[in-house]
């Protein structure tokens, strides 16, 4: 079994603690123009505490830090809702081609035709996959796409002279949904779902004050919202729109399209569904697809094609405006384009089918030992709870013990509708052997909870560091290092 064990564990100080006065890690060319003098009153003094290191110091430091991390390339990473699939290496080479990496964002359109064609192509591919015809590639991540999408909804209503002020959000939603609605000046109306949202429950809260319903499909329990078409109808009948959080699109590619279900707006997470790396927390990319009716409100610029080729279109008078600088996370878009071209339509469908098979396989193997609160057929992920664990052990203990077995833990304590949730999303890139190893570890942990619960409560022991005191971190926050002679 490919489990965790102790290897060579390296200690490593902070950068600043390695610093030696006079060391350098750079060499500039000789200045080939006369040195100019900045007016003295504008010039800063030496930066206290800023590091002085050689190139070797820097390379060792970050290489050693990297060994303290766990990535998808290290092993199974079943972090639910995050779709931690394999990040193809050719895509990393793709975005580093000089014809992409060394292009300034303000070059004239005619000197960036290849980049613009790639973006246009990606817009069209995402439109085909989602069934939503109009796209923006600008948002920087899922939550940013969500904000763009909800601003589009509000702009649409206002253009029709409607001041709707409420947004309905089911209890299975991501935390970003209510935060986003608030940023758009909307009041949140929560609705209980009991696992699946019913059209009747939505109808109860639906009136002509409601701007939109925000839904995730499949939802955060990994279940398909089977009444989605009826739900969309209820909302549309009262003049509202339906926003879909696209975090779980990996369950639907080639099988069903949000646009065909009646969804009006959806964001994509290219770093989930389309294999771009998560980068330790970013950069992601959150394109947004909308129905034709909402297209005029998309952020500027969008990439369009006309007789002269491809160009960035800024002349969109009803647009909500700009969400960020320039045209989006282009380097991430290149990777997603390369992924879609590698997979093709049939390959994307196969990815979805195997992702769903993997989740159902894990469910079948673990259901005898873990409490499964919602029993409908799972799609790409499955959510268990810690209800039946023995020895006073909790979800957090299972997660930490999994680290000792060499796995990244699942998402824990989310979604909120399941107490002590363990949310497992294996993705399609894991083999049955990897799933078996994980399931055996999970089953072993259930036995340990019964026989020797301290093994869980004291976990993890294998990493170089043990459980950290988070209360201490929050009570008196130390958010930066300071030199000894520095104030503060």
């Amino acid at each position, binding site marked *: 079994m490919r489990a965790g064990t102790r290897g060579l564990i390296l200690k490593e100080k902070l950068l600043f603690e390695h610093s030696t006065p006079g060391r350098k890690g750079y060499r500039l060319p000789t200045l080939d123009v006369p040195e100019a003098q900045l007016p003295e009153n504008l010039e800063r003094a030496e930066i206290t505490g800023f590091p002085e290191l050689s190139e070797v110091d820097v390379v060792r430091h970050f290489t050693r830090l*990297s060994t303290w*991390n766990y990535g998808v390339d290290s092993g199974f990473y079943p972090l639910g809702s995050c779709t931690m699939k394999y990040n193809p290496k050719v895509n990393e080479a793709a975005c580093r081609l000089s014809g992409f990496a060394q292009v300034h*964002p303000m070059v004239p359109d005619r000197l*960036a035709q290849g980049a613009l064609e790639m973006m246009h192509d990606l817009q069209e591919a995402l439109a085909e996959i989602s069934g939503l015809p109009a796209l923006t590639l600008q948002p920087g991540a899922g939550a940013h796409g969500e*904000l763009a999408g909800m601003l589009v909804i509000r702009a649409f209503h206002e253009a029709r002279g409607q001041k709707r002020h409420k947004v309905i959000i089911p209890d299975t939603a991501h935390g970003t949904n209510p935060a986003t609605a608030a940023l758009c000046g909307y009041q949140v109306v929560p609705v209980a779902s009991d696992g699946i949202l019913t059209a009747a429950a939505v109808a109860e809260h639906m009136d002509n004050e409601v701007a939109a319903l925000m839904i995730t499909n499949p939802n955060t329990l990994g279940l*398909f919202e089977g009444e989605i078409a009826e739900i969309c109808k209820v909302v549309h009948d009262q003049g509202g729109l339906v926003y879909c959080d696209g975090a779980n699109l990996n369950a639907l590619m080639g099988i*069903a399209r949000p646009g065909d279900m009646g969804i009006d707006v959806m964001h994509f997470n290219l770093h989930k569904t389309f294999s771009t790396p998560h980068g330790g927390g970013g950069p992601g990319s959150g394109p947004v697809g909308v129905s034709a009716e909402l297209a005029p409100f998309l952020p500027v610029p969008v990439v369009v094609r006309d007789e002269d080729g491809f160009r960035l279109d800024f002349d969109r008078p009803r647009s909500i405006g700009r969400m960020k600088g320039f045209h989006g996370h*282009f380097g991430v878009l290149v990777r997603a384009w390369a992924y879609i071209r590698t997979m093709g339509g049939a390959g994307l469908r196969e990815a979805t089918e195997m992702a769903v098979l993997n989740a159902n396989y894990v469910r079948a193997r673990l259901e005898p030992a873990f409490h499964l609160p919602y029993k409908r057929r799972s799609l790409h992920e499955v959510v268990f709870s810690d209800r039946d664990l023995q020895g006073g052990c909790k979800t957090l203990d299972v997660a930490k013990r999994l*680290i000792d077995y060499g796995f990244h833990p699942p998402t824990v304590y989310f979604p909120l509708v399941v107490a002590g949730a363990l949310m497992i999303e294996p993705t399609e890139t894991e083999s049955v052997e990897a799933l078996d190893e994980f399931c055996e570890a999970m089953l072993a942990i259930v036995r340990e909870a019964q026989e020797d619960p301290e093994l869980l409560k004291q976990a993890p022991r294998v990493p170089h560091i043990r459980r950290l005191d988070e209360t201490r971190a*929050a009570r008196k926050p130390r958010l930066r290092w300071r030199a000894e002679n520095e104030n503060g």
Partner: protein
Amino acid sequence: MRYIPHTAEDVRRMLQTVGVDSVDELFVEIPDSVRLQRPLNLDDSLSESELLVALQELAQRNATVSQTASFLGAGAYNHFIPAVIDHLVSRSEFYTAYTPYQPEISQGTLQAIFEYQTMICQLTGMDAANASMYDGASACAEGVLMACRATRRRRVLLSRGLHPEYRSTVQTYCRYLDVELEEIPVDAATGRTDLKALGAALDQDCAAVVSGYPNFFGIIEDIGSQAKLAHEHGARLVAAVQEPIALGLLKSPGELGADIVLGEGQSFGLPLSFGGPYLGFFAARQKDIRTLPGRLVGETLDLEGRRGFVLTLATREQHIRRERATSNICSNQGLCALMATIYLSLMGKTGLREVAQHNFSKTQYAKERIGALQGFKIPFSGPTFNEFVVKAEEGSAAVLSRLEQQGMLGGIALECFYPEFDQHLLVCVTEQNSRGQIDALVDALAGGAS
């Protein structure tokens, strides 16, 4: 499909364990009425070698800064990127990890962010920095919202010298919030924010004054005087740094009295990459840390008393506070922040100052030579860092197209952002532009005007 390991036999065995006869049965909860009844209409799958050919074909149709002499800046800068950066961020322990939710197996990411936060504080003169945001423009919008939260006020003054894309991003974010935005003109002689107009616009409802440092015209703003004026009215001074190499040489905004310092970190070792992904940095003073947006990494101890790092102060964030969160952001630009951290570690205390000095000297050289040409003027008298505005009698479009024919990207026409500057170019010179390139630019400009 090489990214999917399942053999037909694996699938058969797994279906048996699940207890269904076919993969189709797994999708039973999706009603037929919403199913796609045809295959996706996408191009056929490519092999790795075919993919690379297709990519090269697209890539070669873009003008790169290595093949074309480029004087483009305006918020994205062509600086040298040491080879070390790409090697280190290509360690897959860094780039294939996600947000450090499990600190015991994410100390690499967490410690690097803690180091990043520290260096951002050192450069900006602030007490606390977050773990990064999407880019300078979105960080600027978050800065405006934070100033409103911290002061419980709703009027914000944006200098017209602030990057136009930052201003429009702020407008988008504030579109449906109770925030009133007002623009403060720049002084036509100096190119700096007009202090008189600023003084007149400030009142007891003002949450913040937001200014570029340097501003969009490359001018080094008098942040100190602006801060003083803002503080007299109880408002925060927000300094937006679109070119952070300047911080190697210029007084830190903190030293000059700024309360919030944010900006674009692309210059710290990130490729131009047609506009992203870049790096929004964001820093503030101790008094405001509980209203900061975004993720924060803090130091703590483990069970055995060893130093370690965790995500902290999460009660500000969307997953806990939901609609009352300080922002809806739930990621950062992790890998981009790591790139900046490595860049700053290599450059260190003396390197950052040296590279800033090179940018400044080369820009002064270009500015003086162009300013001496017939038909060209430097309209603003304020001191500049590595960008400056040129007024061309023949008009910006004519000049730029003439330069383009000679294989040069000579600058950006200001007219698309500032209709009043219809003859003006924004020219940027970095350490990547040799004296030969600058001389060629000057000669080309002179050639057309004669």
